[in-house]
């Protein structure tokens, strides 16, 4: 892969920047993990690469902003996709300190995008601020669909919301409240039964919390 410049290292992939048929592109290559059983490693990387490419296609068809896939090299676990010029939301928030109104508006955009995905029957699977890119013109793009799935199960949608909320709590605790308020107002416009989703989020969070019940259930037989 000559002419490529390594720009990022994600949890599961290395990200190169370059040109593909003259288009400014990202080359995302999933890497093998030395700690994993080789068979499991191959299965995971192959499946994630395939899901990501497929989901992006459905996402674009549903009119949601995501980088178009230009080429897939399954044997090398590599996807070539459009380069989205903008700021990763995680860094965007860190750089801005406390602008409540701006945060609420950003949250609203995230809510709209998440709602549109769910409306299209897609759960993202890793909906964190690291996987959202805000363009200079204000459009919000979603990336990293390796954990996504086609679904209409409220549980899967609620898990997306839970993962997002978790990333806000742990990475941006000071910005969480306006962001999440904004999120709900955007999300509720797309998803009329958003209350059911939010209730399920609460339920998911309680599951992890009920240490006592979980333990005695597992050991009481």
């Amino acid at each position, binding site marked *: 892969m000559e002419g490529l410049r390594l720009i990022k*290292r*994600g*949890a*599961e992939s290395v990200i190169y920047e370059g040109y593909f048929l003259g288009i400014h592109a990202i080359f995302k290559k999933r890497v093998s*993990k*030395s*700690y*994993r*059983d080789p*068979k*499991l490693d191959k299965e*995971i990387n192959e499946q994630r690469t395939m899901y990501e490419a497929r989901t992006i296609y459905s996402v674009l068809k549903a009119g949601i902003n995501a980088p178009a896939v230009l080429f897939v090299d399954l044997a090398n676990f590599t996807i070539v996709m459009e380069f989205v010029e903008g700021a990763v939301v*995680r860094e965007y928030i860190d750089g801005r300190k406390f602008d409540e109104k701006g945060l609420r508006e950003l949250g609203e955009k995230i809510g709209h995008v998440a709602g549109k995905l769910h409306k299209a029957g897609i759960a993202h*699977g*890793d*909906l*964190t601020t*690291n996987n959202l890119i805000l363009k200079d013109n204000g459009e919000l793009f979603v990336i990293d669909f390796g*954990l996504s799935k086609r679904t209409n199960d409220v549980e899967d949608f609620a*898990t997306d919301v*839970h*993962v997002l909320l*978790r*990333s806000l*709590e*742990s*990475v941006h*605790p*000071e910005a969480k409240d306006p962001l999440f308020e904004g999120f709900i107002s955007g999300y509720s416009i797309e998803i009329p039964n958003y209350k059911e989703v939010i209730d399920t989020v609460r339920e*998911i969070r309680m*599951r*992890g*919390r*009920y*240490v*006592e019940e*979980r*333990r*005695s259930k*597992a*050991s*009481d*037989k």
Partner: protein
Amino acid sequence: MLVLGIESTAHTFGVGIVTDERPYILSNIRDTYVPKSGGMKPTDLARHHATVAADVVSQALKEASVSIKDVDHIAVALGPGIGPALRVGAVVARTLALKFDKKLVPVNHGIGHIEIGYLTTGAKDPLILYLSGGNTIITTFYEGRFRVFGETLDIALGNLIDVFSREVGLAPPYVVNGKHVIDICADQGGKLIDLPYVVKGQDMSYSGLLTASLKAARKYDLHDVCYSLREVAFDMLLEATERAIALTGKREVMIVGGVAASVSLRKKLEDLAREWDAEVKIVPPAFAGDNGAMIAYAGLLAGKHGVFVDVENSHIRPRWRIDEVPIPWRA
């Protein structure tokens, strides 16, 4: 300063005595309840703890060569844990506090695991994996609290390997010569069987894996099932860990809780750390599982910052999460 700490949240009744200077830990005595078969019933646990409590307290004092009069504070794990077991520790702590006129320090059990990890590994600013029978948590300290990045959405990693081992007849005992029976069994296998691998963002789900593994155990070679279960369970955790490393940029990974004693987990973590140029810091086996010293030590830190509770308000907290606890002693 001398602090006596009491642990009784689950299977172990433990008492430790610590001081605020080297060697810090003066004694660490425990008695763990192991049912002959099946799981732990809360009432059996409570009976066990109540039976051994007095002996464990006096042994801890004796080994530390101190008298209860020299002790400054009594620390007690008020949660999270199993109600009837917690109550025994709380009663012992209240009694000691009232009888000998000591202040009572409430300690969160998970914070105990984490603080003894910092003390014994020398970690400075780590990503923390708290892995035990009741918890599977990825956390880090940030602005006054431990923030949870990821955790199990259902059962804990330790619970998964324990219940599987028990149901297929490998346990009890769960640990033989420092190795978990799942590891012993897995090391004789090596063929990967398809089992559900479920990671959701930084969270993982283990209950589907348990069900599928128990089913697979009826069909395939048990060693291969042990191997596959272990690989899938640990790799899910490691993947979530990598996400947290990518997100936080931490260069130390500290492992605490009973599962930290796993040899195979250590090997995998070291492979992972090499890829991220990070360092793995694992709590020594003696302080990995539940123990009193960790409660005493977290109590010492809290007590120095004025965290006390009146005896009449020292209620047990079976569902007390680590991210609810203010940590005034870490800047």
